[in-house]
């Protein structure tokens, strides 16, 4: 259903007629700058869409933001300054990759925390296991009976 979600929320419903995201007219003449603009565009969110970068979105706002990014680049901003400019204007929400700050620390550290906690637990389990005698293998009475049963039936089946 993501197909529906992505298209519904951008472009189509919002009345944009452009089926293309980056349009030929927007592009910068300087291929180096244009390349940087494309890379930056993938980091920036089209804020009226759900989870689409301005590089992918056909919404009018995404178009405006793409033009804005290119204007900043032409004015000589470095990548960092372009992002700062957009954050100052639109807030952290515009970044698809949140910055590492105290309120996003848990987000960024999750993989490490899980690996560490899991690794420690594994090591502890392995150590505990070594001290433990082999698992008891005594069968319960019904299991003994079933085994006897099975052995008997298997015996009769053999030629």
């Amino acid at each position: 259903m993501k197909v529906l979600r992505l298209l519904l929320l951008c472009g189509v419903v919002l009345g944009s007629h452009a089926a293309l995201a980056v349009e030929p007219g927007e592009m910068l003449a300087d291929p180096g700058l244009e390349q940087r603009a494309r890379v930056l565009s993938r980091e920036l969110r089209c804020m009226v869409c759900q989870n689409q970068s301005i590089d992918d979105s056909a919404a009018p706002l995404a178009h405006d933001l793409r033009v804005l990014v290119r204007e900043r680049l032409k004015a000589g901003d470095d990548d960092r300054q372009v992002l700062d400019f957009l954050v100052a204007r639109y807030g952290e929400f515009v970044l698809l990759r949140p910055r590492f700050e105290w309120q996003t620390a848990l987000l960024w550290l999750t993989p490490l925390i899980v690996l560490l906690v899991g690794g420690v637990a594994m090591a502890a389990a392995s150590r505990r296991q070594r001290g433990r005698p082999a698992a008891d293998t005594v069968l319960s009475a019904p299991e003994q009976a079933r085994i006897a049963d099975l052995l008997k039936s298997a015996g009769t089946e053999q030629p």
Partner: protein
Amino acid sequence: MIAEVGHYALVLALALALVQSVVPLYGVRTGDRVLMGVAEPTAFAQFGFIAVSFGALVTCYVTSDFSVATVFENSHSAMPLIYKVTSAWGNHEGSMLLWVLILSVFGALVAFFADNIPDTLKATVLAVQSWIAAAFLLFILVTSNPFMRLAEPPFEGRDLNPVLQDIGLAIHPPLLYLGYVGFSISFSFAIAALLEGRIDAAWARWVRPWVLSAWMFLTVGIAMGSYWAYYTLGWGGWWFWDPVENASLMPWLAGTALLHSALVMEKREALKVWTILLAILAFSLSLIGTFLVRSGVLSSVHAFASDPMRGIFILAILVVFIGGAFSLYAWRAPLLKQGGLFAPISREGALVLNNLFLTAACATVFVGTLYPLALEALTGEKISVGAPFFNATFGPLFVLLLLAVPFGPLLAWKRGDLLAVSQRLVGAFVAAGLGIAITFAVQGRPVLAALGVGVGLFVIAGAITDLVERTALLKAPLATFVRRAVGLPRSTWGAALAHIGLGLTLLGIIGETQWGSERIVSLKPSEHVAISSYDLSFEGTVARDGPNYHELVATFMVQHNGAFVGIMQPSKRTFATRSMTTSEAALMTRGVSQLYLSLGDLNPDGSVPIRLYYKPLVLLIWLGAVVMMLGGALSLSDRRLRVGAPRPAKAKDRDKSVMQPAE
């Protein structure tokens, strides 16, 4: 009339589900075999009634009965038949009905195949399965009745969303739901094991086919959804880290971990408690996925509040089932007996490592998907977590996991020798090294891409090494090889094939993301555009009429190194009913690479803006998934997993299976 039959059948199914939820459990408690036996016929009947209900809904759609509200909202009399059928589940109500239909199919299959499972376990499993069915049937009847009538039936429907008028809607949701819902079986088995307080290798053997089939469906379901998005959305993206995609990826990760840990449990009786936890997790994540997609909570916390009934109902289901399952787990799991011992360097150890990384990856996706919601609810601050975040976190985790893959199957159970395994993998190392060197020599930078190719080749060559070793291809005479190849368990072939598929997918991802090229230009008729070694000339546009749309078709002649190879015809379709326009991309497959062409809107001067991509190796992304599924299918056909399979006809067969080398 037909709609009422469907509605009534659904009510009857709920009544049966309630009976099946309680009576068999009471039978287990009192040791009454007759009451336990109630589970089986009710499972069949439940399936029967839900099938009737679903059939009634499809009939309403096929006959364009616009007095039914959902048909009016999602169908049109001029649509082709296939879309009339698929539009039955192209909306909230119908898709929930499909969900319970598949749930009941699995319930009936368990009842049918579970002949060799102890009666008490079978009764408990079917009862737990029915709790889920009852909850969702109630949800449909109370909040999402697909059979609601309109007081004044309109003459024509509002049409299905044009984006969904695609064969993808016939394939993707049913496969995905088969995967999601398939994990309900392992969930039910886990709950039953906790209730009974007993679990052993036999349990793992009974559960594994269900996990395997759910995993297969989910794998292809996700891949088909990805391909659908790829050719529909017009810019050639195939994975967006959209919450809806993440909702399907999380159960897949947990399910993949479960598949591997159940293997350890079956062979070595170890990791019991962990396997139970994964079985609960996999289905819980499926439920959470359903909640995320169905409640509207994703678009924002506020959208959830605007139509609270459905959201709160699913949330309640979530709390009861997930909360209940984890409470039961916390209470009963410590009572389960520990299993076999193993050293850290062993097949078990490798599978534990696999589980660790898959769990970390799953947690990353989970936290990344829900973090913005949680942060907004707690602090009111809005942040976005999108593709760049997931690429930066999930990517490295998965690469580490892939590096470990070839070692696992070559390590011995209980205690392995890492050095010896590395020596046996020398061929794989050489293949990877050559791959890196050649890629770097041909493509140059980025270095990471060449390294990625190395990882992909390492995984593939590692899986092949495993097969070569086990069949003694290079060491023994051909006759020995043939005998061994035939005698090798199909699950071993299946595992190797699935790992090869994983490597293929990685190669596809690298090819598409690192070496793809793109042209965005405006063309007038008879103008050319070149990409990679291809040259496209724009021939012009013509207007055409489809069954329920008008389209403007552009024709491009494609030449490869000067030789004509075919034409591409992307189009723009306008659907009058919803006054929507869609862009139909044209794809040309060259080997496993593709040319991808989509149109923008005509410019006033008669030129057409186009997006043209060359996507090298892109098909490997989905072919890899298909290979993974085939591996699963091969493994599923292993006689060891065939629940209720007839006994071997000859005693000789049994001897041979005993004599097989340990896997």
